[in-house]
């Protein structure tokens, strides 16, 4: 158990570093619209969903409407239904308290890293997920609070590829989850659908949900066709 937590905590460090920079930038934004620095850290610890927090705070800043801001932020989090659902078997053996902790510390990065590693090493389980998740939520909480407290201006780190670091990491994780040609068509449809939705101007988070759903439909159709042939 301890070894798994430690492995997860170490493996996630490069991604946590990237998240820290985004966290710092989000803290700045939140402080500018009236959130106290400590409340930004508190929000990060309680919500633990970067894009959702950013959108909710932006909406709140521009409209002042609490419910609209919360709904916009929450809608971006809908992909977590699928993400957490995919963890249900891994978390099954944990007591409820730990299971709730595990799903709270689950984010895109540590979830994808855990699933990719599990595909290679099936013994990878909840301790790895929790260890990597605890590092991510800690880094996110501290960096957002620091950003709000310091109020400094960041250099343009996007130019040096910070955003692309996450893209590259997810590409590597997709490679880890590749099982063979049967996945090719569903994956292509998922990628295509996501791109269409994002290109049409919808938020990326909606594109991800749309892509995953379309990919699932195609997988289901292929399974049905194969069943019919047999």
């Amino acid at each position, binding site marked *: 158990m301890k070894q798994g937590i430690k492995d997860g905590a170490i493996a996630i460090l490069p991604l946590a570093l990237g998240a820290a920079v985004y966290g710092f930038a989000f803290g700045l934004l939140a402080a500018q619209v009236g959130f106290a620095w400590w409340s930004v850290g508190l929000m990060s610890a309680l919500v633990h969903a970067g894009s959702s927090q950013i959108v909710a705070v932006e909406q709140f800043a521009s409209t002042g409407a609490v419910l609209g801001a*919360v709904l916009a932020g929450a809608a971006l989090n809908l992909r977590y239904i699928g993400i957490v659902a995919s963890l249900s078997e891994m978390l099954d053996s944990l007591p409820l308290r730990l299971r709730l902790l595990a799903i*709270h510390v689950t984010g895109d990065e540590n979830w*994808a890293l855990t699933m990719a590693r599990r595909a290679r090493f099936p013994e990878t389980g909840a301790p790895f997920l929790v260890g990597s998740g605890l590092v991510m939520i800690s880094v996110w909480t501290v960096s957002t609070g620091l950003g709000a407290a310091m109020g400094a201006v960041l250099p343009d780190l996007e130019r040096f590829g910070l955003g692309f670091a996450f*893209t*590259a990491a997810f590409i*590597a994780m997709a*490679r880890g989850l590749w099982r063979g040609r049967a996945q090719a068509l569903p994956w292509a449809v998922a*990628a295509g659908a996501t791109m269409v939705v994002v290109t049409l101007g919808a938020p990326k988070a909606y594109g*991800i949900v749309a892509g995953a759903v379309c990919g699932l439909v195609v*997988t289901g159709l292929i399974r049905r066709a194969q069943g019919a042939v047999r």
Partner: protein
Amino acid sequence: MTGAHWAVIGLLALAAFVIRVAGLIAGGRIRASRHAWILEALPGLIVVSLVASSLAGEPTATWIAAALALGVAVLTNHVIATMVLGVAAFATLQGLGL
């Protein structure tokens, strides 16, 4: 800090947690049903969609860097190696003004 600021924090935290719990309940139900294959297929589909969402509308240089990162991933199957070489390729292409 006003009451509205507190309400945003409290309600957003509640919504985020409810969505995660809904996933946990849905996962259990799906696993017990004849649609258990969904849980096998979901991780790859979500990760591919994450990649696609970050490449949509990006310039050619980003796509080239992504293709190079994919090459590294296929050869090494290693997350950190892919991140390091992918970002190096991206920064080089940016530096070349592509």
